[in-house]
């Protein structure tokens, strides 16, 4: 495993405050981050061959849909994580079939990020 390589994360969320908090959480673990506001921008971020170790998605956003999620699974080799709200958990479980690797309840915390980093490094 190449320990010099920095892990990269794509943050997908429509709220500016949430993006800022996620950015700080991920950078605390040495990750480089890029932020987009919705699913369309997330797909665009993958043009020019960019790829990410981790994609953090807030799928309650209006602009994301299952097709876009499947795009990730077939085109990119990232760990895809979905942040969910507690009320909609049953709905979210069905997204696991659509290609999400893990889902976590909001809000994102240090422990969850630590867990994710371990998962990514475990897959390296």
């Amino acid at each position, binding site marked *: 495993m190449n320990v010099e390589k920095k892990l990269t994360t794509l943050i997908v*969320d*429509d*709220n*500016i*405050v*949430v993006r*800022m*908090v*996620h950015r*700080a*959480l991920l*950078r*605390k673990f040495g990750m480089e981050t890029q932020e987009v506001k919705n699913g369309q921008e997330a797909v665009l971020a993958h043009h020019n061959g960019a790829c990410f170790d981790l994609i953090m998605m*807030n799928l*309650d956003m*209006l602009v994301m849909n299952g097709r876009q999620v499947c795009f990730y699974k077939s085109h990119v080799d990232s760990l895809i994580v979905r942040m969910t*709200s507690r*009320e909609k958990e049953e709905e979210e479980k069905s997204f696991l079939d659509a290609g999400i690797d893990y889902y976590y309840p*909001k*809000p*994102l*915390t*240090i422990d969850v990020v630590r867990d994710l980093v371990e998962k990514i490094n475990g897959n390296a």
Partner: protein
Amino acid sequence: MEQIQRKLAEYTASLYNEKILDEQFIQLQQLQDESNPDFVVEVVSLFFEDSERLLNELAKALNQTNVDFKKLDAHVHQLKGSSSSIGAQRVQRVCISFRNYCDDRNVEGCLKCLQQIKIEYTLVKNKLETLFKLEKQFVDAGGSFPVV
């Protein structure tokens, strides 16, 4: 300095006891370090700015003759997400009720929630501004964090 430290500790504890803030705020404090020394103040300031924008949007949306509940819900959802991410628990809670009224297309319920959110938001804003003032007094008196 000890007096300020005690005052700060008591004030901070009261915010958690009154459920104005939850553990997520502690997460924010843990993210503050030498490479990110003003993180908490910065993210909270952004929250204030963003919330005020959203509250305006909510008022506007509820003022329409034909209320667009989808749009309304989208704004509430944003406020719910941002308040949750900084630990503003009481604001977040009202957002949850608000969304239920949106689902039921209940304008009166929504209006009541908007009033409630404004109250909770003003409360958390005042409390956080006081907290930051106390923290500054503490630092100016020679104190340093983390404070147990």
